[in-house]
């Protein structure tokens, strides 16, 4: 299950404050998933999450699953100028333990540039021959599915401190869940009905737009 969380853009907030608020939400996700996902460190990167995508690893803090020390490390990276908070991102590599299945995975905080594709916070497994996506594993156990999908969508948005952040959308689905790959979604949360309708309309426009190219002819239905 790719999990993708998008936060509401807050006007008049500094990039540093925005990143700190996003980090706070990420740690709340880690707390929520604690029974199933054990982080094993934190990588701080700039520009892009991978070197081949133009990114650079600024700090690697491995082999620690204590959330407080991971939080301190992340805050240290944010406060350690000269890098700009706008281009900073974090990846928490870790292990997903779902019943008797143990898989390597990650939770990533994307920066301003990459959030448009993967959301502000993204989480999944590294695929194996048996499981191509976290969703495949989650589906094997009803209790896990209830907690990680149903309870998460229902309860998590209310746990977030609305003074600093607001969850805009949450998508659960195969691969890279988003509004434009509707067929891969298994669950979604919208902060308002308006957002849901807006998503539906823009999806229809996007999908149908491919067929309704200029010059296309239409058959009149009488």
């Amino acid at each position: 299950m790719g999990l993708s969380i998008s936060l509401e853009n807050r006007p008049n907030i500094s990039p540093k404050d925005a990143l700190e608020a996003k980090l706070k939400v990420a740690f709340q996700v880690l707390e929520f998933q604690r029974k199933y996902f054990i982080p094993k460190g934190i990588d701080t990167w700039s520009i892009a999450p991978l070197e081949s995508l133009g990114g650079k690893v600024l700090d690697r803090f491995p082999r620690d699953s204590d959330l407080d020390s991971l939080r301190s490390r992340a805050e240290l990276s944010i406060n350690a100028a000269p890098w700009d908070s706008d281009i900073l991102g974090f990846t928490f590599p870790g292990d997903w333990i779902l019943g008797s299945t143990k898989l390597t995975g990650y939770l990533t905080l994307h920066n301003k540039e990459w959030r448009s594709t993967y959301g502000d916070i993204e989480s999944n497994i590294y695929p194996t021959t048996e499981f191509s996506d976290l969703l495949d594993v989650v589906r094997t156990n009803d209790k896990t599915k209830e907690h990680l999908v149903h309870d998460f969508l229902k309860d998590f948005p209310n746990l977030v401190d609305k003074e600093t952040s607001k969850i805009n959308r949450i998508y659960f689905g195969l691969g890279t869940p988003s509004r434009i790959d509707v067929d891969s979604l298994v669950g979604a949360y919208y902060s308002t009905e308006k957002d849901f309708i807006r998503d539906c309309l823009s999806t229809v426009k996007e999908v149908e737009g491919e067929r309704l190219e200029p010059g296309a002819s239409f058959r009149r239905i009488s």
Partner: protein
Amino acid sequence: MFKGCTPVYGKPEVEYDLNDPADRDKLGIADDGKFADGYCHFQNCTWMVEERKGAYHIKVAIEQLESTVRQLLASGRKVTMVVIRMKGPSRNELRRFTVDKKSRNVRLGNTAKEIRIPGVDSPVKVIYENDLQKNIEDLRGNNWVSALA
């Protein structure tokens, strides 16, 4: 399920299934989940690393390729080509990554810059299951053009 490298230049002469712990041990690749599916050698001297994706996720595929290539190069192995084989593109990632129809090279959408794994000269290539034969022919044809240039 990985069933051997894609026969881009005929049947591979040497082949490692990286999902097999014994093959990973032979190559010194860590069991950290971030490894590709296959590493193989073709008669035309190409050493290829291949990642197959059941679910759409080009970024994760690139991450797995990057990690595998880094470890292979560190142990003195050669890598001249990296390929992602997937069902098809997701609309979401197509806004970020574009795939050149002829060369099959992946580009970053906003810069049109080809994506290269550090240490490998050839850009990352993507082939789709639903047009596999044609995509393989494109890769072969493109290689001949490069060889003649």
